[in-house]
């Protein structure tokens, strides 16, 4: 029984660590509010929606990566 409980605690800890890591990686990759701003020639400042902002950020990341 003690052995079983020990394994259960270990598995729980591993699952928790995986979840924390996954959330951290998702948060760091996702575009946040304010990450992208476009000033239109009408003078308006626009913050694109999350899908479009993500597209901007993904391409910008590649630009920064290859720029060195």
């Amino acid at each position: 029984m003690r052995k079983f409980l020990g394994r259960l605690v270990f598995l729980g800890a591993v699952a928790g660590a995986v979840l924390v890591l996954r959330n951290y990686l998702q948060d760091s990759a996702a575009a946040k509010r304010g990450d992208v701003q476009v000033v239109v020639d009408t003078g308006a400042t626009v913050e694109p929606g999350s899908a479009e902002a993500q597209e901007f950020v993904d391409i910008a990341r590649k630009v920064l990566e290859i720029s060195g």
Partner: protein
Amino acid sequence: MAEGDATGVGELEGVLENLRALSGEITTAAVLSEGGESRASTLPPGVDRERHAAMLAALAGIARRTARENGGSGFTQARIRAEEGHVLLVGLEGGETLAVTTGPDARVGLVLYDMRNARGELQRVLGYGDSEPDDVGSETEGPGERKQ
């Protein structure tokens, strides 16, 4: 480092180098044509220029699309923040784009101010006349210190 077949490429690169010297937080600078070709850049050796230009052209394309979706005909500037740094775009007359990259801790307002100041000179070299730099927006931080 001549790119494309446009006249004044050396002069364009000179303006970009001056911009980089003025704004030490800029890591690379490039001018793209409306079609997405690189007109001039300050990329270090070993960088895949075509790929770099293609990526920047994609960003400029999305920025134009965003501008059109919001009632404009183009964008005057765009800033994109990623973990690795910033990519900043300033639209030029004739559809060209000035694009720079910076590190993550760059003072983006100052860099944009310097980019807008370089815009007039770039447009003169590109043959669009010597337009005045834009009025400095609210993002600037101590513009008086930037005049050289």
